[in-house]
């Protein structure tokens, strides 16, 4: 059997990254999106998202990649992934209209033997409702992580595949594509796969929230979470890869979507989701750590203080600001003078009336009474605390993610505050 031709329909974050990664694995890939302007931009290699390796792999594999806005081009494809990003509202509820419409387009355009795979995040029950009697339809769990999306697509931990009948063998073309990645393939019924995706995120949120609850206790008791976390990672029941870094709540949109989905299903079906609502409440509480700490250290003491804020994206290595703790903070600092810098996100995105767009992190520190590092970009870690101290007017540094070296900051005369450690 010759190598199957793979298609990805929907050239937003998930579809684009998955398509480029598939081309890197040696497959011919058709990247389809009905938006002709989006396709034209991609042909010019203008990327709508920022991900490590993406630009490089797009250039490297351009001969195997076809960008098209014509659904006709899907006809010759063996496996067609339906992968538009599913937008969410402020409450985390999914808008399924874009994926519904994309799926209909694909069903109409695909060849008779094509395997259609839903890759977007959908609620339990979705795929079975979309089954066509004359179509092979599967659901595949995506585990895209912003900032690590390409790496995760190239070297997946496993494939979780939702099937109408998990006992039936997977279509040969689809299996060939999956097996090229050399990882376990776990077929299961549609609903299990859809809920499996949510389950993965639930466990992740529970680890993050537990870390946040205990980190806050550390801040008040004199304990230091950075000393505790390594001990937990050596516990087999927790493990070395557990998410134990304290953070500013849950952000990015995907995890919130799953939490909202679980609450909605629990309400409809009469199961208990009180713990999930407690996670959400804790997330909101921790998101405002920087505001509360900034108030204690500076806002309630200085007249018209200048605040330097490094990082606007919701996490490092991404352009995304969806539910960004940084933007949430800036919203409540409207009357203060700010100096902003992010390696990717323009300062204008903050929409702040008194914000200065600094060209570098150090320039942002110039004359500031307080420095707040809201996104743990790698380049911020290389900042010298002594350089920061020289440029600042005040000495307060809020570094929730522990990007800087705490000891070096204190030695430089900075008043250093971080998550999970006492002041």
């Amino acid at each position, binding site marked *: 059997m010759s190598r199957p031709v793979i298609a990805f329909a929907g050239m937003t974050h998930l579809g684009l990254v998955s398509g480029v990664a598939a081309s890197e694995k040696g497959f011919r890939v058709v990247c389809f999106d009905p938006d002709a302007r989006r396709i034209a931009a991609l042909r010019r290699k203008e990327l709508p998202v920022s991900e490590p390796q993406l630009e490089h792999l797009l250039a490297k594999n351009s001969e195997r990649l076809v960008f098209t806005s014509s659904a006709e081009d899907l006809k010759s494809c063996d496996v067609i992934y339906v992968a538009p990003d599913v937008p969410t509202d402020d409450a985390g509820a999914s808008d399924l209209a874009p994926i519904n419409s994309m799926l209909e387009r694909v069903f109409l355009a695909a060849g008779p033997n094509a395997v259609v795979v839903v890759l977007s995040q959908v609620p339990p029950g979705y795929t079975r409702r979309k089954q066509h009697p004359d179509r092979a339809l599967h659901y595949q769990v995506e585990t895209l992580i912003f900032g690590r999306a390409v790496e995760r697509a190239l070297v997946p931990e496993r494939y979780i595949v939702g099937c109408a009948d998990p006992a039936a063998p997977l279509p040969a073309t689809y299996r060939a594509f999956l097996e090229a990645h050399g990882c376990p393939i776990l077929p299961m019924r549609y609903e299990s796969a859809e809920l499996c995706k949510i389950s993965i995120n639930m466990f992740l949120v529970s680890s993050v929230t537990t870390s946040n609850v205990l980190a806050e206790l550390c801040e008040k008791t004199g304990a230091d979470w950075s000393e505790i976390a390594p001990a937990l990672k050596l516990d087999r029941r927790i493990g070395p890869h557990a998410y134990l870094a304290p953070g500013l709540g849950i952000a990015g949109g995907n995890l919130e979507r799953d939490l909202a989905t679980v609450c909605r299903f629990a309400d409809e079906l009469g199961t208990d989701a009180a713990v999930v609502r407690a996670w959400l409440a804790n997330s*909101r*509480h921790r998101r405002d750590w920087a*505001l*509360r700490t900034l108030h204690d250290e500076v806002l*309630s003491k200085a007249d018209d203080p200048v605040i330097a804020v490094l990082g606007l994206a919701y996490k490092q290595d991404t352009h995304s600001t969806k539910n960004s703790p940084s933007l949430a903070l800036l919203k*409540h600092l*409207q009357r*203060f003078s700010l100096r902003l810098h992010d390696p990717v996100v323009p300062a204008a995105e903050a929409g702040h009336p008194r914000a200065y767009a600094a060209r570098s992190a150090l320039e942002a520190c110039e004359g500031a009474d307080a420095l707040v590092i809201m996104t743990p970009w790698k380049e911020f870690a290389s900042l010298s605390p002594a350089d920061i101290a020289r440029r600042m007017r005040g000495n307060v540094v809020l570094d929730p993610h522990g990007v800087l070296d705490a000891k070096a900051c204190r030695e430089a005369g900075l008043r250093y505050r971080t998550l999970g450690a006492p002041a």
Partner: protein
Amino acid sequence: MIVHARAAPAGPQRVVVLGAHGFIGAALIARLKQAGIPILPLASKELDLAASDAPGKLARLLEPSDSVVMLAALTPDKGRDAGTLLRNVAMMQAVCAAFEETGCAHLVYFSSDAVYGPGPSLVSEETPAAPQDFYGAMHLSRELMASGVKAPLLVLRPTLVYGAGDPHNAYGPNRFRRAAREQGKIQLFGEGEETRDHIHVHDVAEIACLCLQHGSRGTLNVATGRSLSFRGVAELVAAQSHKQPVEIAAGARTNPVTHRHYDVTALLKAFPGYRFISLEEGVARCHGAP
């Protein structure tokens, strides 16, 4: 969380204060006068809200452009029974009926943190109300009644308020201050382990004034975000007392130890950079007061 109708403080045209002679009412009137805001102070002597003709009398006093602050209530020292609850509810009914007739611009209802149950120690505006006594149930009932009026509603839920001029002698800074001065001894329940948030009456008045100027609506806890044990409060009061030394005596404990902390993020978001009066400064301000 509250939302401001006016981003910059302005006005209001006139503030009608119901319960003007009370501890908070007097402080609020002083603050409003200082801000140059016209006021109509009404106490029970001028208008008995529990009387059957109260709705009509109040309606005749109100203007459609008024902001109304409802502070009038029979406090627990006047009774903790169902009868007191019903009289308090009747007073609120009169206010709602007057609003129905006049339709004022803004209603500020002074509730209480008694609407929260004893369960959670960390309380925010998202904490579900679960009153445990008639007093808490009264405030929650009056909040619900107020939500029915056709005007933007602000509910303020103050925690333990202290300051000079407090007529009550509740366990806390005021009683400790008087006890230190008069007896040279502060008597604690147990070891005074319970932590509570104490807010100075001037802060309560300031926050209410800001809310009136911004035309704020929603629900806001009025607390400082800093809790201290009663022993800590006693030590602070003793250290500032003119009479020295002051003995701090542990006593018998009849109730289990409970704690109460406030997450005041919503207040910090509403009024960024707000500076609370510290307990040290607040107690110092009370020196010389009865």
